[in-house]
């Protein structure tokens, strides 16, 4: 499989109209091999014969429930499965995710949301490992490059080593680049603890990080402070 769009997908729902619509949405998004099943029995048969690479399941089915069906299918294969259900109670979502579902989307849903979430899961599972790694381990901030694997910052003046905490903080910011990461979240990543008592320590670490990655640490361009909330790695950074 070269791209995720080549994957065969199985959609299980007792509403024929929903099946038609989801199939159309997926086709429009570029997934052309979409199979549908209206009940557990059909789903089992298609799963065994066609061996799909991804499954979208409803929770309420005429001859059983989606949770049991997912457990049964999980016993045969580890392909990504996500729930698409009208049941929005936290207990149901937690049960589905707890049983090993890759995601839980509640109806009504936006077609784009379904496609994005499904693509994300398929990409994580089926994207060639080598490509992912090179994506994951190198960050470019203008002239500065950060190699997460070796934990060094490469600048035109030479190499600077990141400490373990700086590494953890920068990685968390990079994973959410373009978004604000709260100070609480950064503390949990670096110290596995709450912010309380670490306020100044966090500020000191951020200042040291800026000294390593910013050309002018007092006027940061990439690692920005969002007053009262946390920090943000500017979106203009490129992977």
């Amino acid at each position, binding site marked *: 499989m070269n791209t995720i769009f080549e994957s065969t997908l199985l959609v299980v729902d007792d509403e024929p109209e929903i099946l038609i*619509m989801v199939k159309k949405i997926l086709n429009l998004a570029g997934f052309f091999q979409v199979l549908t099943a209206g009940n557990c029995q059909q789903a089992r048969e298609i799963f065994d014969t066609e061996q799909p690479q991804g499954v979208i399941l409803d929770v309420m089915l005429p001859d059983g429930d989606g949770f049991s069906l997912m457990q049964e299918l999980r016993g045969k294969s580890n392909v990504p499965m996500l729930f698409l259900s009208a049941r*929005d109670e936290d207990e149901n979502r937690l049960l589905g995710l707890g049983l090993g579902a890759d995601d839980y989307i509640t*109806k*009504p849903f*936006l077609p*784009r949301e379904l496609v994005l979430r499904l693509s994300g899961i398929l990409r994580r599972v089926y994207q060639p490992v080598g490509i992912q790694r090179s994506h994951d381990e190198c960050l470019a901030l203008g002239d500065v490059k950060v190699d997460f694997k070796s934990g060094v910052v490469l600048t035109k003046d030479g190499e600077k080593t990141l400490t373990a905490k700086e590494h953890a903080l920068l990685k968390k910011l990079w994973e959410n680049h373009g*978004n604000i990461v709260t100070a609480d979240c950064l503390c949990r990543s670096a110290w596995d603890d*709450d*912010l309380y008592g670490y306020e100044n320590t966090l500020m000191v670490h951020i200042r040291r990080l800026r000294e390593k990655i910013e050309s002018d640490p007092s006027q940061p361009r990439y690692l920005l402070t969002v007053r009262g*909330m946390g920090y943000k790695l500017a979106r203009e950074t490129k992977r």
Partner: protein
Amino acid sequence: MKSLRKIITHSILLTAIIALLLVVINVIFTTGWILRNSGEQPPKYAISDISEGLVNNNGVYNLNASASSLFEEQFSWLMLIGKDGHVVWSQNLPGDIPLVYSLADISSFSRWYLNDYPVSVWEHPDGLLVLGAPKNSLWKYNITSTENTISHVPGFIAGFLILNLISALALALFLGLWLYQKLKPLYNGITALPKKEPVALSTNGITGEIARILNETSVILSQQERRLADRDQTRTEWIAGVSHDIRTPLSMVMGYASELENNPNLPASEQDQARIIRQQSQRIKSLISDLNLASKLEYDMQPTRLTKVSPGGLIRSVAVDFINNGLDAPYSLSIDVTEDSNSRSLLCDEQLIRRALTNLIDNSILHNEQGCAINLSVENSLDGWVIKVSDNGKGYPPEFLENSEGLDEPLLLGNHGLGLIIVRRIIKIHDGRATFENLATGGCCASLIFIQ
């Protein structure tokens, strides 16, 4: 149990006071009676005066006027017994009174009665003066006591009073305890009623009838409780069922509208109409979700998971979610937190509080189309933590503020409806309170007060 003890203690004290009061009244009455009676001249002085008034004038006895009047006041007859035992002079002497007396006779009647006439005697220079009162007019008694006994009389009286007091207190205590034992099961029964615990008291004894009524009340209450719970559950399940059933058709509306909105083959005006359908469907989706949550909160069907969270961290996270999800101009979001709010000091259901804050921010956005600056703050007041969501927009409509203090507010308050009702329900299940106000500087402020 404290209040029952209080009642019993008061009852004991009251009984003791009543008993003491009775003793005091008795003492006062008796003393008063004695003093009143002692005001009359004692008979013995009258007798001596009469004796002195009986004068012997050469063998002729004569009772002077004052002695005569004293005699008539108290006695009906008199006689003077000479030294030889013979009656030497008499006045009004009844026929059944002998005229000769031996020493034994005199000794006998001087203390008691003479032929059932109560008599008094007094010495006279010529013998013994005997004064008789009519039969059955006086009661005579004699007290013989040792000196020792008499000297202890004041002590005896004091002891008697103290004994009375102790007895009164002991009896009151005994009665109080007895009453306490009898009332205790009733008290337990009554206190169990508001806690919705079943009451099955023994229906014997003097409190049996009240116990029986309490038992019956408990059965009626538990039946009502069950019926109400059933009805609430049916209503919640019905709303959940309807919400569930609406979701599937709404999925189609939203899904196809979204596809049409992005269909390049359609003219822009139709794409725009599809966008409106999609947006309104999303609004229906959030309304259904709100309705479902509101009914669960209303009827206590929403399970709560209480954990200690950092209030500062919580509002930071909510604000950041909004900003990261694309909150843009003309809206802005800022926060104010104190350093102590970063500690895990607020016990709450984090997801529900997050929902309440999201509703409040959504409300500010929804009702200020021209944009506004929203501020989230947290502070530790005397009551406990207070989280405030304020904006500088157009504020709450007056009718909302009028209704916001009421407990039985209508389920929908215009466009401000369900979102804020959910906020109030959420804070209510945290035993806190929510207040809504318009600010003098413009805009409004909702405060979630967590009472600790």
